[in-house]
């Protein structure tokens, strides 16, 4: 890589009191180059634009300045912190003749890896973590859209995943603008662009974000593309005109309940066929809503709030197959078979809450939104977590992650206090009273004896 900024040098920038040390180049593309930098002992990232990119996008500097003033919608965004132009003294050290600028943003921690690693099947990540990442993505877009902003260019390329916890980070926030107000230069990334944007009938905005978000969620959940089925197999050379037909002129969802022209091929598209049945019907329905009716009617697409709600519910329904240990997400109640090994899944204990229910399976969590109808879905501050007994893993308990004591009640009326950090066995209890609200412990009704 030919680095535009000299690695190892300290440069002065207008508006920065201290010099910025260019630690090393991190990467570059057609827009610009990204560097790790140090400012007064703090490590940050600097994106420096290529003159061609600035020339193409007249609103870039104005948009960045507005984003910097508005601050990040939530902490999932590697949001611009400051716009930088080289000071006259440092100008000669920058190795391009044309005038250019860049912006500072938080540095991505090394545990976060590009989402394309997951798409390629190279990332060791669990189903639950993928669902958590999907929730984090939908939640980030929820915060962005609620702030009246739109992202415009969602793709695998600007999403990073932390595989152990399912955390996410979104980079390249330089196209963010007030929805409908600023006609920036970017249109989106083919394959993620809404059909109306690909065909040039609309500018990217919050409605097209909803399409791109659904594509990205689908790709994370299935490792497959929602529009690549039989109709893609019929294309010999997948070039621009072919992509335009497939994703713009005649886009058909591979699981469209009515239009069966683009079904996945059992061999070529096995990923989609294996993973799609894992997900509960209400979650599948949001994809159908976005990719069927919402394909041509942008206002009918599933909203960010619908995604966060349904993804949080899916996580609440997680239970482990006793035979193979794999996570299953189908609703309790009806008889179900493990998607992975086909064993019947036993009916689990359910924790009934003022708002919703959580199945008793290790690592499932209770959050404030389970108790308070006025708070939105949020997975960041759990109040309780289902845990397996350290000696007897089959015995499940509930760990108090809140700062207040609970009261655990048995069927015979006896009760015990459960302090912060302590766990109570679910086997003996019928109810747990917490300051947030009551938790009812519901056991499955044993099957009626055969007559």
């Amino acid at each position, binding site marked *: *890589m*030919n*680095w*535009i900024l000299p690695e190892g040098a300290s440069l002065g920038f207008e508006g920065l009191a201290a010099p910025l040390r260019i630690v090393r180049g991190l990467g570059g*593309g*057609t827009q610009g180059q990204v560097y790790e930098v140090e400012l007064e002992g703090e490590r940050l990232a600097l994106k420096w634009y*290529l003159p*061609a990119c600035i020339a*193409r996008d007249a609103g870039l500097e104005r948009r960045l300045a507005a984003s910097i003033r508005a601050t990040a919608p939530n902490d999932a965004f590697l949001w611009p912190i400051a716009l930088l132009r080289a000071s006259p003294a440092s100008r000669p050290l920058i*190795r*391009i*003749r044309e005038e250019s600028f860049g912006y500072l943003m938080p540095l991505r921690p090394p545990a976060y890896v*590009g989402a*394309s690693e*997951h*798409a*390629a*099947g190279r990332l*060791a*990540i*669990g*189903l639950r973590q*993928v669902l958590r990442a999907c929730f984090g993505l939908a939640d980030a877009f929820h915060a962005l859209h609620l702030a009246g902003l739109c992202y415009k*260019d969602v*793709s695998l*390329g600007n999403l990073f995943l932390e595989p152990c916890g399912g955390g996410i980070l979104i980079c390249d926030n330089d196209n963010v603008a007030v929805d409908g107000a600023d006609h920036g*230069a*970017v*249109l*989106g*990334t*083919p*394959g993620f662009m809404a059909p109306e944007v*690909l065909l*040039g009938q609309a500018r990217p905005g919050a409605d097209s974000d909803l399409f791109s978000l659904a594509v990205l969620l689908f790709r994370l959940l299935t*490792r*497959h*593309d929602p529009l*690549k089925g039989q109709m893609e*197999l019929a*294309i*010999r*050379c*997948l*070039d*621009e*005109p072919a*992509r*335009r037909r497939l994703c713009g002129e005649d886009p058909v969802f591979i699981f469209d309940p009515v239009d069966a022209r683009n079904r996945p091929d059992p061999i*070529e*598209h*096995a*990923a989609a066929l*294996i*993973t799609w049945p*894992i997900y509960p019907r209400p979650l599948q329905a949001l994809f159908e809503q976005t990719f069927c009716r919402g394909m041509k009617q942008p206002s009918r697409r599933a909203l960010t709030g619908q995604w966060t709600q349904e993804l949080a519910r899916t996580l609440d329904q997680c239970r*482990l197959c006793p035979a193979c*240990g794999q*996570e299953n997400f189908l609703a309790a109640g009806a008889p179900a078979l493990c998607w*992975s090994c086909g064993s019947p899944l036993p009916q689990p204990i359910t924790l009934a809450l003022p708002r919703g229910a959580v199945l008793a399976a290790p690592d499932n969590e209770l959050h404030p939104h389970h108790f308070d109808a006025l708070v939105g879905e949020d997975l960041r501050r759990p109040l309780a977590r289902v845990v397996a007994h350290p000696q007897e893993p089959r015995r499940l308990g509930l760990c108090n992650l809140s700062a207040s004591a609970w009261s655990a009640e048995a069927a015979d009326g006896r009760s015990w206090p459960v302090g912060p950090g302590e766990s109570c066995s679910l086997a003996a209890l019928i109810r747990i009273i917490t300051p947030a609200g009551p938790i009812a412990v519901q056991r499955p009704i044993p099957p009626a004896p055969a007559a």
Partner: protein
Amino acid sequence: MPFPDVKLANRPLHFLYLCDCSGSMAASGKMQALNQAIRQSLPGMAAVARDNPEARVLVRAVSFADRAAWHIETPTPVDQLEWRDLQAGGITAMGAALQLVAAALQTPPMEVRALPPVLVLISDGQPTDDFAAGLEALRRVPWAQKAVRLAIALGHDADLEVLQRFIGTEPATAGRSPRRPLQAGNATSLAQYIQWASTAVVGAASMPASRVSETPLEPAAGNIPLPDLPPTVLDPTDDVGPVVW
């Protein structure tokens, strides 16, 4: 528990170098510069291939001098590629090289389904054989018609007209100038062009990059919109005198 062991379906992307190894390439270290440029470009190319799970990037190379021959005959995944140095010596059988590539782009051996192939022709002189027949053979192959064809002219003696015929004439569209052979006047610019072809162009052909409104949305004459050329980065070695061929 791990995510199901499934992978994104992908398509092959064939990348072919056509390298001039005629005797004139031995002058002024041009052959060494080309070997270095290609070798240096491989890590970046492998990174692009990794970032584009929809594509399986496979590299081949043809050398041409007194005759044309496969330098790398088996389509090789870029992360497994070891670049053996090309040796200069002989005349310029460019037409024969095009014949060789034309045969390789027939189906079979080409897959039925693929991404547009990328062909990169690098030359410093004039063909000494029947270039027109080679080009005609190439033009008849559907995969060659779909291919992204790039040409790099080394030094001042390269036959720009022949290279232009290889990449084809394309009318200027939407403010873009028509495509021309890339002219590498020194080792630095050669390395930049090779890097650009093996990273930015491979990226554009495998998974489309983010689009800006200047890019024509109507299907353009080319079937893959080419990314911007690398910016002219001021080379610190310029101060000590460039290697001018």
